């Protein structure tokens, strides 16, 4: 038995892929960063940080088709820019959510989501508060880990699950109301 798994990433291909990504979507990246931060230096910092985040997801990015890749890049820049802006404004860390008992509600949330159509879910998501929508995007669209989301949102990793649960509950409640 071998103690370690063989590593197989090819750095040169990754470098070329990231370079291509950056050059292809640079206008959208800087445009989004500028719109969020309103400041060139902050926008450039946001793009730098976004590139670093994206480089950690190279394996995932390679699997995405064009439109999804483009939106992944832009949403990443948006989230990163917002996070930077909050840090620069020295906003206090997001309130850590108290632990909730999840077991009773989660089945109801799943039922609500499973029964709803894509358009219904989209409409419900659009009605969520920005923060709840962002945490869902981070988990389900950007496929970020709890630790990554925690860093982005400036909360503790343990609170990420609670924020996700809240967002799902809120979403389920909106879907329930729409279904009425």
């Amino acid at each position, binding site marked *: *038995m*071998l*103690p*370690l*798994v*063989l*590593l*197989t*990433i090819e*750095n040169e291909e*990754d*470098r070329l892929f*990231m*370079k291509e990504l*950056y050059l292809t979507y*640079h*206008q*959208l*990246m*800087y*445009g*989004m*960063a500028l*719109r969020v931060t309103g400041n*060139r230096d902050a*926008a*450039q910092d946001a*793009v*730098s940080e976004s*590139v*670093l985040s994206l*480089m950690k997801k190279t*394996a995932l990015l390679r699997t995405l088709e064009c439109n*999804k890749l*483009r*939106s*992944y890049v*832009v*949403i990443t820049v948006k989230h990163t820019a917002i996070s930077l802006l909050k840090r620069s404004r020295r906003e206090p860390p997001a309130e850590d959510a108290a632990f909730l008992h999840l077991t009773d509600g*989660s089945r109801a*949330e*799943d*039922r*609500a*989501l*499973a029964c*709803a159509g*894509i358009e219904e*879910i*989209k409409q419900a*998501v659009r009605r969520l508060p920005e923060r709840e*929508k962002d945490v*869902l*995007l981070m988990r*389900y*669209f950007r496929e970020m*880990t709890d*630790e*990554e989301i925690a860093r982005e949102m400036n909360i503790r990793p343990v609170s990420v699950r609670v924020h996700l649960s809240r967002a*799902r509950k809120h979403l389920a409640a909106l879907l329930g109301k729409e279904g009425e």
Partner: protein
Amino acid sequence: MMRSDDALRRALEEIAQEETERFARSMTQEEKHQAEEAFRGHRRRVLSLIARKSKTGGRRGGYLRAAAALILLLGGALIFFRQSAPETQPLSPGASSTVAPFHAISPAPTETPAPTAKPTAMPTPMADQTISPTSAPDYLKINTQSPTVTPISTENPLPSPTPEATAVPENGLLNVEAPAGWQGAFFPGQMPAGYAFEGLESEEDAWSASFRCGEKRIVFTEYGRLSALPIPEGASVSYRQWNGAVALIAERNGGVRYTWDQDGHTLFLEADDGEIAEAVARTVKSVH
């Protein structure tokens, strides 16, 4: 749950794409111009960042590449040893001599000559990249996705920690000798009672010996050059000083790995029982 998550995922993908499309269409000429200006002033820095990060894969990526290259070599050695059934001399009657997986760990000898110990630069764990080993003890499981190229030798000293000198408690250690076939320059001088020699593994310029007591193992590894292995994700890191060397200690789930340099060699001692690990590490001594 899966179906509900899939629906949510699809919905969020479409929302992200719609939002991106909406943003792209809403960009004014002035905004595009400013974006291009920001890009022009920043492009070289970002491309350099991409090249730098890709080249090294980060410090951790470099160590992972070294580890993975070592695994390749050891895999070949393992196959060779299994086929040729190398002779190993048990240190105690009845001890098995089956080859054990090669673990990188290390402890330190108490009687070694004054080491020129140049601590290796150890990467700090990064939570974002998960690495998990296939067969290491639980606390060492690393699942590597970074590239492996060739083993690297590092000469970078550790960042200046403030190591605390600690006394090693007496815990009933028994004297042991390096087993026949051990080609390293160092070996633990003592092992806790009940630990039987299990086996040796080696490859060019690296050697490993394992001891077992029931479910618990101690593995001593020596690299004939300054080297480093990645710190298991989630492990806590601290430093100790002994015999002029600074040992890096990575602990997780009760297990521990000591890593330090001695006379241009990097030594690792890894144990499932953290309490005895340091005691054994401090007994590592020169054997050649």
